[in-house]
């Protein structure tokens, strides 16, 4: 058997809610050490795609293969080396930072858990808050805890749904640096959604523009705008949001 070098392989992914198509025939791959930006206006299908990759939403059609393991057939095994953070999924606010990390470390089967937690608390500057309940933290601190949780199992596939949305610019920059280090030092691949186009341009190796559930454009965030006659990624984003048909036909 040939070793599968793809971290994530999504093929023909569809999600239908009655007559409405939330995700329509989406296919893409994430390779090791690669950061892929999943972009698009609200309701484009980004979170639906991420939910399906996380196994919490069943696709209407298509396949999701994580490191050669089909998610539909072996969900638990496929998710063992996957992790995520999302602004809409904060960790339980009635548990402390340490308790949350301990519980999720066990759920992900992390070896040498106390040592791993200690190192993540240091890495994300959370040592002072380790015994603070997550609900009492500021939104930026909560984001850092969620990121620490997302790194617990040294994931090979990391899904980040607007990870820096509630962070101040300085902290957001630090977080971006940490995630870049994560991909360059290890073998992990990242799927990243953000509405901050400067961030995307700075961090992502490749972007996918989603509109009405379909991938409209794909390419290098640094060259894609000029390829479509736009000044920058933000202009391209606005065009995708407002005139998707023009871009599709162009």
């Amino acid at each position, binding site marked *: 058997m040939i070793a599968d070098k793809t971290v994530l392989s999504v093929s023909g992914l569809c999600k239908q809610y009655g007559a409405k198509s939330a995700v329509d025939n989406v296919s893409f791959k994430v390779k090791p050490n690669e950061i892929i930006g999943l972009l698009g206006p609200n309701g484009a299908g980004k979170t639906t795609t991420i939910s399906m990759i*996380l196994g919490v939403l069943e696709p209407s059609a298509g396949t999701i293969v994580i490191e050669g393991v089909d998610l539909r057939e072996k969900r638990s*095994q496929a998710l063992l080396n996957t992790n*995520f953070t999302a602004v809409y999924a904060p960790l339980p606010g009635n548990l402390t930072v340490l308790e949350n990390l301990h519980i999720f470390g*066990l759920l992900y089967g992390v070896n040498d858990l106390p040592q791993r937690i200690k190192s993540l608390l240091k890495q994300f500057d959370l040592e002072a808050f380790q015994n603070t309940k997550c609900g009492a933290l500021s939104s930026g601190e909560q984001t850092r805890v969620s990121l620490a949780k997302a790194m617990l199992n040294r994931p090979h596939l990391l899904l980040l749904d607007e990870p820096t949305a509630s962070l101040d610019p300085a902290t957001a920059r630090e977080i971006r640096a940490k995630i870049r280090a994560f991909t360059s030092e290890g073998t992990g691949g990242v799927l990243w959604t953000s509405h901050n186009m400067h961030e995307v341009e700075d961090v992502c190796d490749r972007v996918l523009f989603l509109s009405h559930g379909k991938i409209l454009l794909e390419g290098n965030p640094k060259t894609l705008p000029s390829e479509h006659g736009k000044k920058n990624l933000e202009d391209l984003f606005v065009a995708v949001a407002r005139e998707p048909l023009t871009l599709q036909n162009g």
Partner: protein
Amino acid sequence: MSFKRIVAIVLRQYYLMRGSPARILPLFIWVGIDIVLWGFMTRYMNTFSSAGMNFVPVILGAVLLWDFCIRIMQGVTMAFFEDVWSRNFLNIFATPLLIAEYISGLVVSSVMTSSIGIVVMLVLAMGVFGLSFFIYGLMVIPFFLILFLFGIALGILGCTIVLRLGPAAEWFIWPIPAMIAPFVGVFYPVSILPAWMRMISALLPPSYVFEGVRAIVSGGVFSGTSLVLGAGLSVFYVVLSGYFFTKTYHHAVRTGLIARYSAENLG
């Protein structure tokens, strides 16, 4: 099945319980009040009973056994509700956790939390009101086992209802034991029930336990077959409730309810 993942669910419950009087006090306050209330009631009943009939093992024993069943049920549902209240479904079900591991974790959490209430009940019933389990003999083991299994089945059923109908359906769960109690004959023999209620009663495992309690205390004959039937029904309901929970979970994954649980109904 991963032992670590089951431990994670149990540990979460332990972390929530420690230092939380709002969670610890209800574990024994209500059962304690129940035992005190029925303890004095049985004492009073003993004062006018004929031929020295002792109501303590019949009524107080039955109350204790029924409270045990309810506590087991509530232990399972409460552990599940913690995920509902903290909107934790997305985080927890996006991990490698299997449904069987999750349910096992809820059951072990229930055993852990219920044992506190049971100890309080036993201390009060035996120490203050003179209830002795020796009167039931070895039968006390299958009695507790049947009620334990049925409590788990009811607990999983409660989780299933809330998973399917959303957080507001929590209201449906609390009255379940009160709705079942008239059919299982906690305080009276099933024979006094009308025929249609007796039919339902025959399908409920606790009926066999409470009939057994009364038969033993009155010195009558108690068939082991009915205990086997009660145990078999309990096992059947545990399997059935587990099956429905799994089906409901898959429905929630298909419709997107797990990812957006607070929306309550997307199907």
